């Protein structure tokens, strides 16, 4: 970034891929991929899920060997047999899911597998700590080397991951979806770190599927689609729309509705007041959470993952006991903590873990579609199921919700993420719910499927269902919600009308800032 343009032109790229291909049984993960990363540049790899980003980074880090093509570093051909070779060559990976041991200190985590020069049997922790402090000062990544990982915030943990790579003398850092777990404020700090890295001659390969972020952070962007490198573009001059078109291969419509709101006089269908519940470790995870959802309204719950959203959703679905508080569904008090009670009261639930919690992966689409209704006619004539009815219902739901599968007898585990989500929404909506609780409904889906799922949620709201949408994706929240409830450490830090909300204003609340305005 600060290197001048002329010197860039003469130096060979820090790392470059020439015609890299990698096949797996039945899939071509990478097909003739070309790209080059200059010294001191942030180079984004942009693509949808399944476009080949992960495979490519696994090739760069020595986990896979390419079937064809080769890599060059500084103009010299290299080939990596093991991850060790890539590390020795100066390539370091900052994983999306941190590879850190929570009970170890920062220094212990960084020292793992990276012996100090001249080290014998004894481990010199003081020397490791000194080196970490030096690196921290050099790259403005301050963190206490003696702190234990579990005591650190997610942003600090990411700094440890970056330091871990720098400690191993990496010149090229690969970051896999690094902002996925960060608050907007932490994401800003990360982009400052990127500047500090590149200004000291390090190069960054920034893997992402988020268009806006890629434009603001990267110098150049290589777009991958279906395993192929489509184009390398300068970030300046690119727009979300132009990138999306290259990424998907066609023009993409964005589903958007802001602040349409509940129908006038629509009743409150879900009312939660003063809800407390414990998390998995027995510590309070929800603290006095209150919120209302009216029929026809989409209320989003925003927040960084792990701030009580999962617990809230599980309490509403009857999967987690509450310690105190009141839940009222369409005027009726929910007073029992079992999973069947909310279903009967009209609460539909689309969990984050679609295939594991939401569906029975080995059962067919048809069987999954009646999982919540199999006790009563017309699906059953107790104690027997009526397979002809089940199948006919499945056919019509699959058509209505555009589920693409070989047949209604296909096991759901064989479906793509988008179709899994459609089956799940079809089942939940077919129960004619009053409230639809959905948790991160588009995580991991490709752009086309995202648009379909968004449309289905809007349809549900249009039918008068109150939708509670839990999402970590602020773009999604802002595009769909009428109101946004922000959670931080188990409490609601603010409720904002979507019409007035911006990423920045929600970001402050996500980091624990309080707002006095309650809509």
């Amino acid at each position, binding site marked *: 970034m600060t290197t001048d343009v002329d010197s860039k032109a003469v130096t060979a790229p820090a790392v470059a891929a020439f015609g890299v291909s990698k096949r797996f049984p039945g899939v071509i993960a990478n097909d003739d991929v070309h790209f080059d990363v200059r010294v001191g540049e942030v180079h984004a790899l942009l693509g949808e899920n399944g476009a080949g980003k992960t*495979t490519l980074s696994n090739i760069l880090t020595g986990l896979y060997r390419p079937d064809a093509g080769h890599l060059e570093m500084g103009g010299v051909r290299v080939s990596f047999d093991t991850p060790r070779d890539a*590390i020795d060559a100066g390539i370091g990976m900052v994983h999306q899911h941190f590879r850190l041991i929570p009970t170890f200190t920062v220094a212990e985590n960084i*020292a793992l597998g990276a012996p100090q020069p001249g080290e014998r049997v004894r481990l010199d922790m003081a020397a490791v700590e000194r080196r970490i402090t030096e690196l921290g000062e050099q790259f403005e990544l301050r963190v206490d080397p003696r702190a234990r990982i579990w005591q650190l915030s997610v942003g600090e943990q990411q700094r440890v991951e970056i330091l871990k790579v720098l400690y191993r003398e990496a010149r090229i850092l690969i970051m896999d979806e690094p902002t996925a777990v960060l608050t907007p404020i932490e994401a800003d700090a990360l982009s400052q770190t990127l500047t500090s890295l590149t200004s000291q001659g390090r190069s960054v390969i920034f893997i992402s599927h988020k268009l806006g972020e890629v434009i603001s952070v990267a110098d150049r962007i290589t777009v991958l689609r279906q395993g192929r490198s489509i184009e390398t573009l300068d970030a300046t001059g690119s727009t979300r729309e132009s990138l999306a078109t290259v990424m998907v291969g066609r023009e993409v419509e964005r589903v958007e509705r802001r602040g349409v709101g509940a129908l006038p006089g629509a009743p409150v269908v879900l009312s939660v007041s003063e809800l407390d519940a414990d998390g998995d470790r027995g510590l309070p995870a929800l603290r006095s959470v209150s919120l209302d959802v009216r029929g026809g309204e989409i209320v989003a719950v925003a927040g960084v993952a792990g701030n009580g959203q999962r617990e809230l959703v599980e309490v509403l679905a009857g999967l987690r006991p509450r310690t105190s508080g009141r839940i009222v569904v369409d005027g009726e008090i929910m007073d029992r903590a079992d999973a069947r009670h909310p279903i009967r009261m009209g609460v539909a639930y689309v969990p984050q873990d679609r295939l594991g919690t939401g569906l029975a992966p080995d059962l067919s689409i048809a069987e999954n579609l009646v999982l919540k209704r199999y006790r009563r006619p017309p699906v059953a004539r107790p104690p027997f199921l009526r397979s002809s009815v089940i199948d006919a219902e499945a056919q019509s739901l699959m058509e209505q919700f555009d589920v693409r599968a070989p047949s209604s007898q296909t096991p759901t585990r064989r479906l793509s993420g988008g179709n899994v989500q459609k089956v799940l929404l079809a089942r939940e909506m077919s129960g004619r719910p009053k409230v639809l609780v959905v948790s991160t409904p588009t995580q991991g889906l490709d752009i086309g499927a995202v648009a379909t799922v968004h449309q289905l949620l809007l349809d549900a709201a249009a039918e008068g269902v109150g939708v509670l949408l839990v999402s970590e994706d602020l773009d999604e929240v802002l595009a769909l919600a009428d109101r946004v409830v922000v959670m931080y450490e188990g409490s609601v830090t603010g409720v904002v009308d979507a019409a007035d909300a911006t990423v920045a204003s929600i970001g402050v609340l996500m980091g624990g800032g309080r707002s006095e305005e309650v809509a």
Partner: protein
Amino acid sequence: MSVNSNLFVIIFASAIFYGTPLVFAAVGELLAERSGVINLGVEGMMLLGAVSAAMVAANVDGPAALVLPLALLAAMVAAGLGASIHAFLVITLRVNQIISGLALTIFAGAAGLSSYLANVWGLGKHPALNQFGRMDLFGLKKFPVLGPILFDQTLLTYLSWVLVVAVMVYLFRTRMGLHLRAVGESPQTADSVGISVTRYRYGHVIVGGMLAGVAGACFSLTIVPTWANGLTAGEGWIALALVIFGFWRPDLTLVGAYLFGALSSLSYTLQARGIDVPTALLDALPYVATIVVLVIVSNSRISRRLGSPAALGRPYEREER
């Protein structure tokens, strides 16, 4: 009567004497568990060690300084072989660790291989020709109170102290120890920085088994000291509980081992003094305590809080697409 024949001095001294096999077995199991592998085969491996040591002690003629190390070596090899079966099953084949360990104890245990071998070798008819006797360390045996407790033990006890210190240093002060703990906490993380999970797990399971073999030899070379079927009397299970009791730390495990050693020896000690107590009750104490400890920690939430290695009992498979 000197202070050294005071009842409490004798209880302490025999606590250490009877606790010594527990120290070896529990520290061995601790090493395996720190790598993420539970080995319920401790009892079986101890019996394999005991029978092999007894065989050497009964059949090899020679000076004690030669025969006894040989007997210990035989115990370590036999138990190490037992442990390597477990290691192969659970690390390479990813068999359920609980089932494999139980199978090892049943296979090698009181009604299995160890008794068969003892039968074949004709063991148990005579006391061992050579045994580890009490050693007056630094000539301090007569020292009041501490003398009989600390300086009138067998060489095996002194070795167990060296072992505990060595394992403490190894775990918390060396790079290999750091890597071992990482493998037990998060094999994914260890693998991602180039530490061989498989190698660490095999190594520590097998070394752990060898130490269980030494524990078995403590019975056939000092405590009993000959062969008798099932002579370890379930102490392998106590060792398993001790690892948890000691929060996976060698020093605390040693304290626990002596506590259980005291419980195990209480009935002899009291009887020898002519104190009348129901011995069945006293004999049951260590086992009751073991069951209590195991019930408490079998709740995974509690055991996590106690410091159990996070990946304990879980096979590791590198994620591939």
